[in-house]
């Protein structure tokens, strides 16, 4: 009490001074707490993002690794090289097919599982949810090894089971017509659990009374799904669509482990080919290919946001 009694003229500026002193302490604390993250982030993420773009316009090769700034600018040459490379074009096509097949299948499987579980399957709901989610937590490299074993032509489990019902087994990963499809199926198996869990959360937003009222008015299940469920979960749908597309546009481990890109480049992906260009030491070309993938990711994301928002 006694210490706070101050002379009249000073009391007017005291709160202001105290506030600015506190502001200084707050700013110092803020900077101090931010510092370790920001330094590591600028060095190991932000700067490489920028450097990667610069690199894609230079003739940088593995021999320049000790002097990454002593390189020549070559304009768009690396991008032209990428477009003129038939293997890269094939890789881009494979990636597009992988995304166009894989994304809808993953979303349909995830949404179907979520709706089935949301209807209330009682105590077993938790068991189904855990089971469907299990592949998501596993290493893609590990499950790719397991799937290669499952898909073996002579004594793989898949062909054995098909044999029981009288279907001749296929040479899944060795045939150009089925290799990429096999990778898509494995990716759907590995990832639909994520979309299921997110859809399960999103389905909480669906008004059950609206469903009951519509059912009384004679709307069938499909009509109710189209007109009530889908509009209610639109934000969730958009989120799953965007994140699944971004993930699938970069698929890498599946062909690396299961097919090594073959047969005849029928499963090589854009990521995998970028990695092999890096392996050959063509850093500039690899950088251009990586940025092309990134550009496609950005465009696909923007388009999906537009399409989903307008309706």
């Amino acid at each position: 009490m006694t210490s706070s009694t101050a002379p009249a003229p000073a009391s007017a500026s005291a709160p202001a001074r105290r506030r600015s002193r506190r502001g200084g302490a707050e700013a110092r604390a803020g900077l101090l707490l931010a510092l370790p993250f920001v330094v590591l982030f600028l060095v190991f993420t932000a700067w490489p993002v920028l450097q990667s773009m610069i690199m894609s316009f230079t003739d940088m090769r593995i021999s320049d690794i000790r002097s990454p700034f002593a390189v020549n600018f070559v304009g768009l040459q690396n991008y032209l090289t990428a477009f003129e490379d038939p293997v890269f074009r094939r890789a881009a096509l494979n990636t597009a097919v992988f995304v166009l097949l894989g994304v809808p299948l993953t979303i349909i499987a995830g949404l179907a599982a979520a709706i089935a579980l949301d209807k209330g399957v009682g105590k077993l709901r938790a068991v189904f949810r855990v089971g469907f989610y299990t592949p998501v937590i596993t290493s893609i490299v590990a499950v790719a090894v397991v799937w290669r074993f499952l898909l073996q032509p002579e004594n793989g489990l898949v062909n054995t089971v098909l044999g029981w019902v009288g279907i001749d087994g296929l040479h899944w990963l060795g045939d150009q017509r089925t290799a990429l499809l096999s990778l898509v199926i494995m990716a759907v198996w590995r990832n639909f659990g994520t979309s299921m869990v997110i859809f399960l959360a999103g389905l909480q937003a669906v008004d059950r009374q609206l469903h009951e009222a519509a059912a009384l008015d004679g709307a069938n299940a499909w009509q109710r799904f189209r007109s009530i469920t889908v509009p209610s979960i639109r934000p969730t749908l958009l989120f799953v669509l965007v994140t699944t597309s971004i993930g699938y546009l970069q698929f890498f481990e599946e062909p690396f482990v299961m097919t090594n890109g073959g047969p005849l480049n029928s499963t090589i992906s854009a990521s995998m080919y970028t990695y092999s260009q890096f392996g050959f030491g063509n850093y500039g070309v690899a950088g251009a290919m990586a940025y092309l993938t990134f550009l496609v990711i950005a465009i696909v994301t923007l388009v999906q946001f537009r399409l989903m928002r307008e309706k």
Partner: protein
Amino acid sequence: MIERRRPVLTYIVLTVFLLLVITPFVWMILGSLKTQGELLRTPPTWWPEQPTLDNFRRLFERPFGRYFTNSAVVAVVVTAGNLVLSSMFGYALAHLRFPGKRILFGIVLACLMIPGLVTFIPQYVLVVNMGLANTIPALILPFLVQPFSVFLMRQFFLGIPRELLEAGRIDGVGEIAIFFRIYLPLAGPAFATLGILTFLGSWNNFLWPLVVSSSESTYTLPVALALISTGQNETDYGLLLAGATLIVLPILVVFLFFQRHFIQGIATTGIK
């Protein structure tokens, strides 16, 4: 009548799908316990006729103990780093005013969607020039701070009332101490989610370890398994299935114990 029949159908369909989904794991574990001869047999056997750990013995004749330790050390350090550094920065972004705050958060957000494919070559050049190529720190450093982590922690701290901060100031607690003594002890749920996601991401990570590791001393489990599986002419499935089991089984056991945290973590980050 219809209402009663439908759940039964749903159960049957779901059960069939559940069996399809978990069969690869069952097949992996059973296969890892079979002898080389039994694995080559047509038609394949279901239950191992003479269950053996021989595949695992052969696995550990190669330095798989080392690979396992490498994977574990990297995942633990990366997880710890993300929890500590992202909660510090996330708290500052949520509750403190400091110069450069907007611009720093903007840069972090801009990098949220940038794939590892874009950054790995400059990161490799950087690590080589730092003299860290083919070392454990090189596996860790680029993942120690991640945009997603700070985004998650900022969102979490925004949900904790500012009044706690004001009260701490009135009680004369220092600015840094307010974070460590008042806010950090409340971050348990966010730490559980972020910890699980970061650990899984690191344990299963492939591209960067593949790029930066070039000898047995730094291989992680996925890199070692991928190199064995692509390196041989005659495929040794006993060894490969044992390796896959070694990667998947520890995570699977932890998942079955803490599945609620795993699944809720994904769901909450999904909805935001």
